[in-house]
Structure formats: structure tokens, C-alpha cells
């Protein structure tokens, strides 16, 4: 019972915090270099892991699917299946999980340390709102970066699938692309995937900045907040993925 009340209190605090962040976002268009700096540390620094993971996920998909498809003599649909799996599911979800692990945890740790070293209090006493200057740019950067990262993940994954499928396993290159272009719908598949990654970017960034801002300002507090960010945002991404998939592809 007490745990439930605690959980609801945190949810409420998180929601109020989100409203404050959103209220601070219009201000950022006057100071867009703050956001650019954060896109660098949130997006650019996550790029490498996204590229490598995307490539390997695409290659493994092609290997696995090719094995099954040959038993039906349907190797030509390899490209289609790789593309659909990446664009609808794996791109947004795996990119969001990697993003939570790489960028979300870094955000929480950074904000938590700023709190522990009294930098946030210091800003408040300088009559500067830390939510406007510190939290909102990080939130916005995360929210903008994840859809781009997910698109890069899917694109690289498709190329990886092409390399394995066409160059290694001998699927016809023309069939690979023509099946994709005939059956993958831009609005139903690609756009819905992008919408998913926008939602995930929102959730992961929200959890990451909230955990940092709300942490107990000690070393242990920051450490456990960082862990919570990764666990909670991964679970939230997977849960939301189920909900969104049920809504979109029914």
C-alpha cells in the first residue's frame, strides 16, 4: 500500500515536472545553441553504437530469415521481411533501448551530479531557472535525436541485410528491392515506425531527466537513479511498443 502511494506520488511529481519542462521549451528557440550542444552529447555520441548495432542486427536477421525462407523457396521475400522487421519493430525499439542505456543513463548521471554538487541550487540562487536552462535543452535534444537514430538504425540494418542476403547468400538484388518497394507501405510501415520512435524519445528523455533531477543528491543516490533510468525506460519502451503496435497495425 505504501509502495503504491510512493509510486503514485512519484508519477505525479514526474508529470508536474514534465509540464514545467514543456513550459520551458518555447524559451529554447531563443537559445538554440544550448540544444545543439545537447544534441551533440545525446545524439552524436550515441551514433556509433547505433551504427554498429544496426548493421549487425540487419545481418543476423538476413541470416536467420534466409534459413527459414529457403525451406519455403521464398528467398526473394528476404528483403521485404528484413525491411519490415526493422522499420516496424526493431529499428524504433532497439534504438530506444540502446539510447536509454547510452544517452539516458548519461543524462541522469549528469543532472544527478549537478544536483549533488549544488550546481542546480547555485543556478536557482543566481535567479536562473535550472529547468529552463539545464533540463529542457536536454529533454528536447533527446526527443529530437531518437527518431533520427532509429531511422539510421533501420537504414543501416537494411544495408546489412542486403550485404548478407545478396552478396553472401546469393539472393537476387532486383528481387530484394522490388519486393520491398512493392509491399512496404510508406504511411503504414515507415511512418508508423517513425511515430513509435518519437514516442519512445519522449518517454526515455522524460524518465532520464526526471530521475536525474529527482535523485537523492549523494553518490549512491546518483548511481541508483542511473540504474532506475535504464530499467524503467526500457520497460516503458517495451510496454508502449505493445500498445502502439496494437493501435497501429490492427
Amino acid at each position: 500500500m505504501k509502495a503504491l502511494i510512493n509510486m503514485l506520488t512519484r508519477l505525479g511529481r514526474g508529470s508536474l515536472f514534465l509540464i514545467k519542462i514543456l513550459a520551458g521549451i518555447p524559451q529554447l528557440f531563443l537559445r538554440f545553441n544550448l540544444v545543439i550542444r545537447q544534441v551533440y552529447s545525446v545524439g552524436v555520441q550515441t551514433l556509433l553504437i547505433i551504427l554498429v548495432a544496426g548493421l549487425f542486427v540487419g545481418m543476423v536477421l538476413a541470416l536467420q530469415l534466409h534459413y527459414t525462407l529457403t525451406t519455403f523457396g521464398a528467398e526473394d521475400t528476404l528483403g521485404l521481411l528484413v525491411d519490415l522487421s526493422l522499420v516496424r519493430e526493431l529499428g524504433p525499439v532497439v534504438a530506444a533501448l540502446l539510447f536509454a542505456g547510452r544517452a539516458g543513463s548519461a543524462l541522469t548521471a549528469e543532472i544527478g551530479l549537478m544536483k549533488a554538487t549544488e550546481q542546480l541550487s547555485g543556478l536557482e540562487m543566481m535567479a536562473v531557472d535550472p529547468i529552463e536552462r539545464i533540463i529542457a535543452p536536454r529533454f528536447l535534444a533527446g526527443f529530437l535525436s531518437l527518431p533520427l537514430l532509429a531511422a539510421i538504425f533501420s537504414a543501416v540494418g537494411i544495408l546489412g541485410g542486403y550485404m548478407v542476403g545478396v552478396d553472401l547468400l546469393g539472393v537476387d538484388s532486383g528481387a530484394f528491392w522490388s519486393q520491398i518497394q512493392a509491399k512496404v507501405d510508406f504511411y503504414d510501415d515507415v511512418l508508423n515506425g517513425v511515430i513509435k520512435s518519437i514516442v519512445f524519445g519522449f518517454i526515455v528523455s522524460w524518465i532520464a531527466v526526471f530521475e536525474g533531477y529527482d535523485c537523492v543528491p549523494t553518490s549512491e543516490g546518483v548511481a541508483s537513479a542511473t540504474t532506475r533510468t535504464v530499467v524503467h525506460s526500457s520497460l516503458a519502451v517495451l510496454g508502449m511498443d505493445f500498445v502502439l503496435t496494437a493501435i497501429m497495425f490492427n
Partner: protein
Amino acid sequence: MFKSIELSVGIFVGAGLAALFMLAMQASNLSSLSSDGFYEVSARFDNIGGLRVKSAVKVSGVKVGQVKEIDYDSSTFEAVVTMQVEEKYSQFPRDTIASIFTSGLLGEQYVALEPGGDEKLLENQSEIRLTQSAMVLEQLIGQFLFSKASEEKDAPF
């Protein structure tokens, strides 16, 4: 210092947009949907089989459009299929036949248009009168068995 950050952010955003562009143009059907307008024709079928919205509309095997809407007319007990055909393929005679075929043995179903010889052309929002319904496998087998059975009955011993 800040300049190099700006540059790498620029590269990152550029790569993201390029990936989105690739997903749109190379890895989906967006490039095959031409942007210069469609015109609509409808056709009535007794049975549409497994036809779905977005199924292909083909002429001589070339995709010229897609199914936009499938409806059921409860007064005539027929399915009404509305198709979007690209503007540049608008030269169809009025006596064009619309049939529902299956690509391959177990593939997807599509609408095939076979142009006739009429001088007058189909207009936007008009209806194709000559149609042929989908073949349903169970019906075909049923008909085949039935005719076999009657053949055997008639056969002299």
C-alpha cells in the same frame, strides 16, 4: 570548439534525414506512388475473394494503381471496389474488363484491367460494367468434382 560541435551535429542530423529519405524512397512504396494525381473508377463484383485495400491494379501485368476502397452494396448484393489509377494511364476504353486474379498459385490478389475496343474512354468517377469475380479455390474444386461426378454418371458402361 563550439564550431566543431555544430559540425558534428550537422553531420548527425544530415545522416538521420538521409536515412529517413532512404527508408521513404528506396525501402518503401513511396517512390512507386507517383505524385501527379489519380483518377477513380469503380467496379462491381459478385465476389472479391481476398482482395484488400491497397491491392494492386494492373494492366498487362504493369501496376497502374491501387484499390482505394471496398464497399458492399446491400441493394444489389455486390461488392463495390473503388480503384485509383494514375492520371498518366487514363486512356481506358469504356468496355474495359476488370477481373480479380491471383499472382502465382498462393500469392496476393489484384485487379487486372483488360482494355476493350470502344472509341469512348472511361471518365473519372465512372463505373466499369464488365467484371469477372475472383476465383475461389473451394468453388473451383467443387465445380471440378461435380462435373467429374456427372461425367461418370452419364458415361455408358
